[in-house]
């Protein structure tokens, strides 16, 4: 279907696109959306054309390709045919861009959210204890390290400050 200048879709604007992107989640952590993760850097809408600007978390993160595909599919599903997904490297992604809601969701899912104020003081997402220790600098994915709670004795993932 060709785009007719006089036939712009009034339903597509920046906030509807943001809403659509809210449904795209990280394939490794399906409870958190790419917006909550801070991957979506910008959305631009001009007439019927949408541009979504994203940034990779870790440079070798295998989820990035999947995420791009999912953005593609959900835009299509919402009737947006003319769009472009742009990847930018700078400024480099940081966990400071993670939303408060995203942090809460991570915790509820069993992953300790990043703690930028004191990276030594990690709260156990299971029991809330701060009596925890690092088991391994790297965990099940590049973005996490492996911890253990010395009170409830459960091991858990910690989403590293980055």
């Amino acid at each position, binding site marked *: 279907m060709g785009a007719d200048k006089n036939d712009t879709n009034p339903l597509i604007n920046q906030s509807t696109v943001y809403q659509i992107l809210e449904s795209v989640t990280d394939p490794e952590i399906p409870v958190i959306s790419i917006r909550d993760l801070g991957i979506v850097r910008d959305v631009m809408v001009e007439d019927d054309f949408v541009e979504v600007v994203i940034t*990779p978390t*870790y*440079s*070798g*993160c*295998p989820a990035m390709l999947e995420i791009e595909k999912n953005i593609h599919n959900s835009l299509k599903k919402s009737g947006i045919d003319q769009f472009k997904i742009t990847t930018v*490297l*700078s*400024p*480099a*992604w*940081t966990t400071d861009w993670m939303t408060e809601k995203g942090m809460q969701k991570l915790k509820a899912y069993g992953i300790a959210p990043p703690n930028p104020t004191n990276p030594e003081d990690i709260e156990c997402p299971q029991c809330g204890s701060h009596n925890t220790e690092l088991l391994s*600098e*790297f965990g099940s*994915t*590049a973005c996490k390290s492996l911890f253990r709670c010395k009170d409830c004795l459960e091991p858990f993932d910690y989403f*590293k400050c*980055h």
Partner: protein
Amino acid sequence: MTNISLDQIGQSRMWYQYAAEIQGEGKSEDEIVAFRDAWDFRNVLLVEQPNGDFAQTIFRQFLYDTYSVHFYEMLMNSNDEQLAAIAAKSHKEALYHVKWSGDWVIRLGDGTEESHQRMQQAIDELWSYAGELTKPNQTEVKALEAGYGVDLEVLKEKRDAQIKEVLTEATLEIPESTYAHEGGKDGTHTEHLGYILADLQFLQRAYPGQEW
């Protein structure tokens, strides 16, 4: 270690994508990787050395990490925006890498008698590959003059200080010899690179352009 590999594959992809763009011959990053032979690769000799035992693997990693973390930090000031952006992205990752490999050097060096001895052996074995990393070749001299490269002499000072700090804590000795194997940066490699390329390039050589 697979997490580190993943980061480094990601970093390499960014470099190769940018190289392909600058080259402007319509080649993809994969083509540059898969269809060149050993003499066209410009990697330092250190990174093509065999894994050896765990101490050797760790020390090779540590020598690379102590270089790359400073290299990226300094390259962030490059006057080439894309180089600076890739460097900023990679630097954050390199910080973890050097912490990880440095912790292992300390744990093994200041560990049991055997782990200490193996770690020291690994250092003695690999030390002669440390020099090439910080000795500029023509390309690097040109890059520095043009403002997009890194001053390797400054880098060397920072790196050497970091190595010394970690090895001291690990109760290990820095070898006295400053002899450095070199040539990798100009395409003269050790025999090991050929075997690595045979593994990595096999699929594309047998089935050019294959994707999955």
